[in-house]
């Protein structure tokens, strides 16, 4: 925070950079990234940290991270959404139906999918706010409803199967497709390959054809979310609504609007992941996004979000998701059994919660 022009107080000890940093919510996640990097630098095959290795773990990190940023914003605003994983499947169905069944161009299919997701997010939010029930239980209901609806809907759309194929053919040649699928900056990588700056195959083509678009969406969303949280009035309202709903409302914060917008945003993050992954694989199925709501919430918690709301950061969730990607993919570069992943996950969550709890006491000076 900018404190220029304010005379320092003699009752303040000069805070070391360490003490100051530890109060940032994202610190834990950054420390985690460093730790995990060091771990794999020692144990994993060196190809993990080549450019293609990095793209390899950043792609799943980005897909989870987009969800995690939505989940983190919602958590800072004091609510949960357990249905965003199922939302990926349901939005995938809507998107598949729009493109394959109805043959809509992307310029219609994408906004329509996002709008349906936002609508369901708004329903979630409205039920939570109107009834005062915990969002945990309301969205748990939607976790099942949306998963079930995806199954039923897919069978209807595909004539009995739980998979809907043909998305790739349907969106082939659409001018919007490059923004949501494939790799970006292809020509740049070709040029870099020619200049000998990136690894190439024997035929001279670069080993990685570009940056997968989800990574760009992921970085872009993290930056925008961080800016909104830290620099705009709306960001202040998110912290206030999550910190104490009544106090925020009494101070003039439109809490209801803020929370419903956050539910809509989280659902739309799910839909964005659905659009990107469905276009990538060319088909959609009912298992898409399975358990992703938990992973997204865990990434947000590793990123410094308090389960009670009012504290956290989007950039923390960004690093939390990267930790996920590094560990899932990184284990394949080592001699360890893949199944260590689950143990790691639980351990990481526990450490993160303990750490966050400690930090909160530091920040609030809880007595």
């Amino acid at each position, binding site marked *: 925070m900018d404190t220029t022009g304010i005379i320092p*107080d003699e009752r303040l000890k000069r805070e070391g950079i360490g003490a100051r940093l530890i109060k940032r919510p994202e610190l834990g996640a950054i420390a985690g990234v460093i730790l995990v990097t060091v771990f794999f630098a020692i144990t994993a095959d060196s190809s993990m940290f080549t450019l293609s290795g990095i793209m390899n773990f950043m792609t799943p990190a980005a897909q989870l991270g987009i969800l995690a940023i939505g989940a983190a914003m919602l958590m800072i605003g004091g609510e949960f959404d357990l249905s965003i994983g199922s939302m990926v499947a349901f939005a995938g169905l809507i998107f598949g139906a729009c493109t394959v069944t109805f043959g809509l161009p992307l310029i219609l299919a994408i906004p329509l999918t996002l709008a349906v997701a936002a609508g369901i997010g708004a329903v979630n939010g409205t039920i939570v706010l109107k009834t005062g029930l915990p969002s945990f239980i309301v969205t748990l209901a939607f976790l099942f409803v949306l998963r079930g609806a995806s199954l039923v809907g897919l069978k209807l759309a595909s004539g009995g199967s739980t998979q809907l194929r043909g998305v790739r053919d349907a969106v082939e040649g659409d001018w919007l497709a490059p923004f949501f699928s494939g790799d970006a900056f292809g020509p740049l990588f070709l040029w870099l390959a020619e200049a000998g700056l990136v690894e190439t195959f024997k035929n001279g083509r670069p080993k990685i054809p570009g940056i997968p678009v989800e990574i760009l969406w992921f970085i872009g969303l993290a930056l925008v979310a961080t800016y909104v949280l830290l620099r705009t009035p709306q960001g202040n309202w998110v912290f206030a609504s999550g910190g104490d709903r009544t106090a925020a409302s009494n101070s003039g914060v439109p809490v209801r609007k803020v929370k419903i917008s956050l539910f809509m945003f989280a659902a739309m993050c799910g839909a964005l992941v659905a659009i990107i992954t469905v276009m990538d694989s060319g088909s959609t199925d009912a298992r898409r996004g399975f358990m992703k709501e938990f992973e997204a919430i865990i990434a947000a918690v590793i990123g410094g979000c308090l389960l009670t709301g009012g504290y956290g950061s989007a950039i923390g969730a960004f690093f939390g998701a990267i930790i996920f990607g590094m560990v899932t993919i990184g284990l394949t570069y080592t001699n360890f059994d893949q199944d260590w992943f689950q143990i790691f996950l639980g351990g990481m969550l526990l450490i993160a919660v303990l750490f966050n709890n400690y930090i909160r006491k530091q920040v609030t000076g809880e007595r």
Partner: protein
Amino acid sequence: MTHDTTFHHGDPVAQTQPIVEMRDIEKHFGNIIALAGVSFDVRPGECHCLLGDNGAGKSTFIKTMSGVHKPTHGTITIDGKPMDFSSPRDAMEAGIATVFQDLAMIPLMSVARNFFMGREPTIGKGPLKRMDTAAMNEAAVEEMRKMGINLRGPDQAVGTLSGGERQTVAIARAVFFGARVLILDEPTSALGVRQTSNVLATIDRVRKQGVGVVFISHNVRHALAVGDRFTVLNRGKTLGTATRGEITPEALQDLMAGGQEIAQLEGSLGGTV
């Protein structure tokens, strides 16, 4: 107890039009009747004290004035026009600022962010419109200094402030935004001697600028020091309104205790109540 004449009181305010006028306000919470028909008004440049025992309904009443509760019955008019606040934000936009008894602060957020919560100043245009953090920090520190509290820094979390410091943030914030009506619900309950007199002086200052002040207190001295009119609530009803000079401190104190004689009690405590 003697009259406190620290502050100069304005001319009789009876002639001026009220800013806010509340008529026959009733508020029910399920089967609980918190307010059973209370009428009250605030005029520009006056300090109208709202007094009464614990649970009399003072906080509930001012919450209907500041848009937190919708009255079950009754009308609210501002400048003679009927008003129907659907949120505290509406009331703020009408120029009514409130210090709530529970202060309405977020412990995890910094002083500056709390100070401007809901009304953040911005710079820039369009998508680059952002919070003016420098202005927020400076204003928060400066307004707190005016109230007699030197903050360690504007980014200190409110949760780490002392009770009185926290109360002062709430008061400074309301004074800063209270364009027409300033409502203070027991603002001095946690304050030190110097900060209390600062708050009373602030009430006097904003009153002279034409702001209407609603002041809730359990302390007769504080009420008499700044009050122009005194309305006493008891069990959800008004016991009546008295103008300054019309009523003796003793009579007021008896009214505040719900009309019961506390003279005996006062006697047994050596007249210190």
